[in-house]
């Protein structure tokens, strides 16, 4: 498994807490539709833009601001961490 895939996998892992079995498909869609690249090519450099998109999209799914904030915080924490490829 390469580093790029692991960024995608870790984003899916975080998302799984909120979107369960739909997490994988959800992230793949966001990467393809908004970043216009295959999910496996996701790098840490893409995360800021991806998090912005996810914030906008998840607010369409729930009105629960606490959950949205918590989810985005988890993603941001991962984006700012040192593990994975394409460090910010």
């Amino acid at each position, binding site marked *: 498994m390469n580093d790029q895939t692991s960024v995608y996998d870790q984003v899916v892992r975080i998302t799984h807490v*909120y979107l369960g079995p739909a997490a994988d*498909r959800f992230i793949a869609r966001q990467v393809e539709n908004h970043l216009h690249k295959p999910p496996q090519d996701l790098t840490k450099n893409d995360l800021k833009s991806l998090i912005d998109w996810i914030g906008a*999209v998840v607010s369409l*799914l729930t009105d629960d601001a606490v959950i949205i904030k918590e989810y985005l915080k988890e993603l941001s924490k991962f984006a700012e961490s040192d593990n994975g490829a394409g460090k910010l």
Partner: protein
Amino acid sequence: METLTNKKTIRFTVTALKWCFTLAAVYILLTLLLPSNYLTIKNYRFSEFEYRIVLLLIAIPVICVWFVAFWGYSKLQIYSQKVADTKEGSELVTLTKGIMWLAWSLPVNAIINRILTGIADKNNSFHSASVILINYLDLIMPFIAFVLIAIAAKGLISIAKLDIGLTNSRFVMLIFIIIGVLYCYLTLKSANLSSMSTTNNHYYLPAWLIILTIIIPYLYAWFLGLLASYELIIYTRKIEGIIYKRALTLLSVGLFSIIFSFILSQYINSIWPINGSIIFNYRLFLGILIRIMGGIGFIVLAVGANRLKRIEDV
């Protein structure tokens, strides 16, 4: 592509509602055209016109529930088609088929019921045959539905690698035993058990045939229905995903309400088989109330399915 998808999803709902409209029209026509029930007219001193109006008034809430049921299953159908290629997709497609059978059973059973009672009203010798046929009819379609729903629930549980555990399901078993024993008591109370071959009872069937073809299949269907509801509730509780879980909870609560309303309705109808005439008592009111409860279940299920679909859309 998105527009095409939207068109396709709208088509599911429109097709389901068109079918429901057709069946409702057939039912109303039959209500207006079939021979009237002599006993009802005599007991309540109705004129022919008043009798038809009363039948239509009773049919209004029932037909509304049909529309809600068809709309509800079409929403689940849209969602299951959307996720058909995923890991749990085939189980959701099977679940949709089960719900579809339940929704279709409402108008189909009512129409056949109306035809059979209409014939029995005209030809008294057909009365016992109509009671027997209606009893079996009330069983068959929901039975198929419960089998499909049970297969889907079992599949979802095994995909998620969840262990229900015998200890947890004891409560379901206890409820089922109480329901089952009470059902056997109430059903066999009307049967003449001194002779196994006599048909002098509500069902116009010998006791052995009541046990083999009514009691056992009904109990088995209810067991499957209750177990499937329980398994889906467990699946919802244990699955990960805060936002996903909220939508799935609505779906499983709706499903539970639908299954429970069908079981309750079958329970009452099979304990006291309908003889064709209308009696304005608590049973008629209870029957409509149970159908409305099922209708609410279909609405909740549709809202849940819509929310799940939205997760797949954005």
